[in-house]
């Protein structure tokens, strides 16, 4: 059995494929909104030191990644162990050396990696225009605006993904998540801009 087949089997046994997908979207959304909020905050405060903005955003992105990784790992280890014990009681057998034991050991790690990597990866994409501008590249718009556009595109795409999962209109779902981003931006302006 190939490594991919083995991985698919473990996700199927532990019934966690949908959890991984949900964590990816939910935490990716967290990362995108956090970065967008921070960048809007920097725009309001009129900070023009790009290295300060990049360091602050990168710090938040790493913290989001670590938080996602550790929280998912701890909760999923507990969840998988509980499931394994329940199954062992039903089977009246030790299942540690079986595919169920493998799933209890490996699945929490995969879920944690997705949960941590999703906000980190999305945050890094949003920060890309800032890095490019800092490296001396000329962008068609101001780097902070470019980052916000990237954030909005990613938020829309996460909405599209959610729409596909739910089997509803991808456009409607994409617009819904954009609407959340718009409300967040308005709240930030209202609460910090005046």
């Amino acid at each position, binding site marked *: 059995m190939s490594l991919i087949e083995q991985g698919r089997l473990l996700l*199927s*046994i532990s019934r966690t494929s949908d959890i991984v997908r949900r964590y990816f979207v939910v935490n990716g959304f967290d990362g995108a909104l956090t970065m967008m909020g921070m960048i809007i905050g920097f725009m309001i405060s009129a900070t023009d030191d790009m290295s300060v903005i990049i360091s602050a955003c990168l710090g938040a992105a790493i913290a989001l990644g670590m938080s996602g990784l550790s929280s998912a790992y701890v909760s999923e280890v507990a969840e998988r162990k509980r499931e394994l014990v329940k199954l062992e009681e039903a*089977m*009246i057998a030790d299942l540690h050396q079986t*595919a169920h034991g493998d799933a209890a050991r490996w699945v929490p790690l995969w879920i944690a990696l997705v949960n941590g990597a999703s906000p980190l990866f999305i945050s890094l994409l949003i920060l890309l225009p800032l890095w490019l501008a800092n490296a001396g590249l000329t962008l068609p718009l101001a780097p902070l605006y470019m980052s916000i556009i990237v954030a909005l595109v990613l938020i829309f795409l996460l909405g599209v993904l959610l729409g596909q999962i739910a089997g509803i209109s991808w456009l409607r779902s994409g617009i819904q998540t954009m609407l959340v981003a718009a409300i967040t931006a308005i709240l930030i302006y209202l609460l910090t801009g005046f």
Partner: protein
Amino acid sequence: MVVLKRIMLDVLKPHKPDSLEFSQAIARAGEDYRVCLTVIEMDENTETLQLEVEGSSIDFTAIESAITSMGGSLHSIDQVEVQNESDNG
């Protein structure tokens, strides 16, 4: 040499992996294995199966190991068909 041609087993397994994944894993234990799986009984966490494996020379240990690795438990051997191939020349 006496070879095992067909064996029928009574197996208890968790709901996951499902019957298709379970029988495919057993079929992978040999090159020409043909597996027929019937779900006899089902409860909240487990299901009882009747598993029939056919092949030119079945390796029982490999089948038992495939069952165990998928979280299943072999309850009994209900039927076997063996053949002494030296009789055929």
